[in-house]
């Protein structure tokens, strides 16, 4: 008779509690299911995702020069490094790096350094691409916003930025051409 007469299940839990829990759970799932499309609609749309790749011709970039191109709305730094810059980058012991990465793992061809030109602190564009720019104490790039300094491999050496300048996905489509993305 317990099932019909009592508000209490055999293990002593009041049935009303169970109903409340089930209702709450359903409401929770329902609210989540309705909220999801709205939140997802704020994430990058398909046309934004589709602007995926950019081709860059490296031929005009002489040794020691740099160019900036756009990819997915972000600046990409492409630098034709001098032998001295490569040497500097490779001479640094890993123990001195905040985000240890060997220079060799950051490039596909020794002289071509391709990076996303966005400071990993809060997203400013570091100085150092133009010949007239300050390159900071480590001869690479210097972010004017809060003073992060990067070396000739784009690795963070000083300041609040936590990580090295990011390397975008790219591939050499010929000896003097790359496709980013």
């Amino acid at each position, binding site marked *: 008779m317990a099932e019909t007469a009592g508000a209490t299940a055999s293990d002593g839990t009041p049935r009303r509690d169970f109903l409340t829990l089930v209702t709450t759970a359903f409401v929770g799932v329902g609210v989540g299911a309705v909220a999801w499309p709205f939140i997802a609609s704020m994430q990058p749309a398909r046309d934004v995702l589709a602007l995926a790749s950019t081709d860059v011709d490296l031929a005009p970039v002489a040794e020691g020069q740099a160019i900036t191109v756009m990819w997915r709305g972000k600046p990409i730094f492409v630098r034709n490094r001098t032998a001295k810059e490569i040497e500097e980058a490779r001479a640094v012991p890993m123990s001195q790096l905040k985000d240890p990465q060997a220079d060799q793992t950051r490039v596909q061809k020794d002289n071509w350094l391709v990076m996303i030109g966005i400071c990993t602190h809060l997203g400013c564009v570091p100085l150092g691409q133009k010949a007239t720019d300050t390159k900071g104490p480590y001869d690479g790039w210097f972010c004017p916003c809060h003073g992060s300094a990067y070396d000739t491999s784009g690795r963070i050496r000083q300041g*609040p930025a936590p990580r090295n300048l990011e390397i975008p996905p790219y591939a050499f489509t010929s000896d003097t051409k790359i496709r980013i993305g």
Partner: protein
Amino acid sequence: MAIGLHNSDFKNPVIRWVDQRMPIFTMMQKEYGTFPTPRNFNYFWNFGALAMVNLMIMIATGIFLAMHYTPHTSYAFDSVERIMRDVNFGWLIRYVHMNGASMFFIVVFIHIWRGMYYGSYKAPRELLWMLGVVIFLLMMATAFMGYVLPWGQMSFWGATVITNLFSAFPVVGEWIVQLLWGGFSVDNPTLNRFFSLHYLLPFVIVGVVFLHVVALHITGSNNPLGVEPKGPQDTLPFHPYYTAKDSFGLVIYFIVFAGLVFFAPNYLGHPDNYIPANPLVTPAHIVPEWYFLPFYAILRAVPDKLGGVLMMFGSIAILFVLPWLDSSPVRSMRFRPIARIAFLLWTICFFVLMYCGGMPAEEPYVTISRFATAYYFAYFLVILPLLGRLERPLPLPESIARAVLGGGGPMPAGAVAKPMDKA
């Protein structure tokens, strides 16, 4: 009177007819007419009313700006320039909106400072205080997004730096940032959603202000002495006493406001925001609007990315728990000789941070910001909790009437029962 109708005191037949069916006139009379208000307010008590007026001004000017503004990266800057040059009185509406934001923060900073000095956050007004902090946060979000809309260099780079703050959070950080951007950088989708939210949030603020006032009218106002009114001899009806006092303050406020709008409309702004946004070039020295500078200085004072972000958010979040950090039962700093000095020092630190936040991230500003940040937090986390136990407050007045009427007021105990025949 028919069954179910409200018992209205109004004589005018139209008002009475409405009031019987929906007693908003009775409510207004009770909350803003006869509402018993401490008789000893000083001018610091004007700033709540001023904030309310300011919010209305922001909404009114904003709606008219939105009639001419285009939220698209290719047109936003030009549409604002068109407002300035071609739209009839567009320059006036925009300058009122722009400087109105600054006035709003001046007013609200003073309003908050008042609450901290006179201990208005203490029981029973904790919830009232916390709703105020919510309003402050919403205001900051609104102003930040508004500043992005003209799509100048500072708009763009301010948006970039501030949205990137969220990338400091582990795991969810990147996801949140993409959610804010709607892409891989601050771009057209970002501008669109910021416009949408900039239009929405002020109305959310209106809602929270309503709750703020509801809470206020339950506990009643604090006052410069920080002792509760004990009877009618300690209070005055809100109207005409404080409607008059608030009106006078309002006139002074409008004079200052007009001074800014007509004589120095760009004084508080940054000239770089009249350069169209360029995603490839960061200005050499980026600064947020002046009202964010203290918090920006705290961000930069910490050499670690996540640490800086947490301290910056923490500097405001800590206000939520202020009612429990300050354990002294005495509200007004007038009677707390040590806390008073500690708080005035905190106020100085706030201005020092504001100054350093506007300077480049170099020495000596970084070190100064670190000391000021340390004191900012120490005041809340160390000094107030300790003083609650160690400080010996000055003797409190017996009642408001006693204190302000030079002892001539009736004794509170005897007077409580007698209705006051004033007004």
